[in-house]
């Protein structure tokens, strides 16, 4: 396979990671809402943890974006 083509295919495969991170972030907020509606009085105290979970899940999607950018423009 041509090296240039392999790079672009690799970048496209790395984009799967961004979609997976979307699942993760959706799961974080979805689970939070689900339990927040069960016990709304406890929800406000957990907002910090919500955003920690969001940051951790999002970082992996952003890493996938970095990998694909590096494959396209740097490698």
């Amino acid at each position, binding site marked *: 396979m041509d090296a240039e083509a392999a790079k672009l295919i690799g970048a496209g495969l790395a984009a799967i990671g961004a979609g997976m991170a979307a699942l993760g972030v959706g799961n974080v907020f979805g689970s939070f809402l689900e339990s927040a509606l069960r016990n709304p009085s406890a929800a406000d105290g957990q907002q*910090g943890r919500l*955003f*920690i979970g*969001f*940051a951790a899940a*999002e*970082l992996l999607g*952003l*890493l996938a*974006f*970095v990998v694909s950018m590096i494959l396209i423009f740097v490698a």
Partner: protein
Amino acid sequence: MHQFAIEPLFGTDHLAIGGYNIAFTNSALWMVATVVVLWIFMLGGMKRELVPGRWQAAVETMTGFISNLLTANVGPEGKRYVPYVFSLFMFILLANLLGLLPLGLVGLHPFTFTSHFTATGVLAIMSFAIVLIVGFYKHKLHFFSLFVPHGTPVPMIPFIFLIELVSFMVRPFSLGLRLFVAMTAGHVLLKVLAGFVINSTNAGAGFGLTVGLSSFALMIGISALEMLVAVIQAYVFALLTSLYINDAVNLH
């Protein structure tokens, strides 16, 4: 892409100290603009009136927000770090928001310096340095017990220590990378959609009305999302900094 290009301004291309170029770039100009906006914001609100006006209430909301964040995450000792975390939060927030201003309409091109790893990396290193300095000053070599969680079985200690050490050392990278990539990705996305609008309109009225208009509608939505991301990323940076400070102040 042109919006991420760093250019020296005002003929300072070859300004150097000890062989290092210190040209005043557009990145530096927007850092100055951010600091000036933050300064005006604080100056208008620090009147210490008993009944706060609108502006003072806005400033007090922001300081109160960060102060609550630190008290919740670090405890009573967190009050000491309010000035640092507040400056960090406001600086990143204003930088993100100023970079989104549609000033291109009047020929002035905004530059988001938080979309460069050099800028966010330095902010992350500052947070990490504070954690190291506070941790080693307060706990001396006992700080290393941070890497061995309470109740670890003895045979597991070397492995756990290694894993915790690695996860500790990647913190500045993940902290800086998150902000930088989130801002870059948002601006690239807007740029791609804007390219759709322009190219489809150039290809003919039919394409312009179908592809162009729908892309433009999407751009409006994404712009709103980008403002949300700008605020969330600034908040996440401040939140993670306060968590790391908590590790240094209270160990586990």
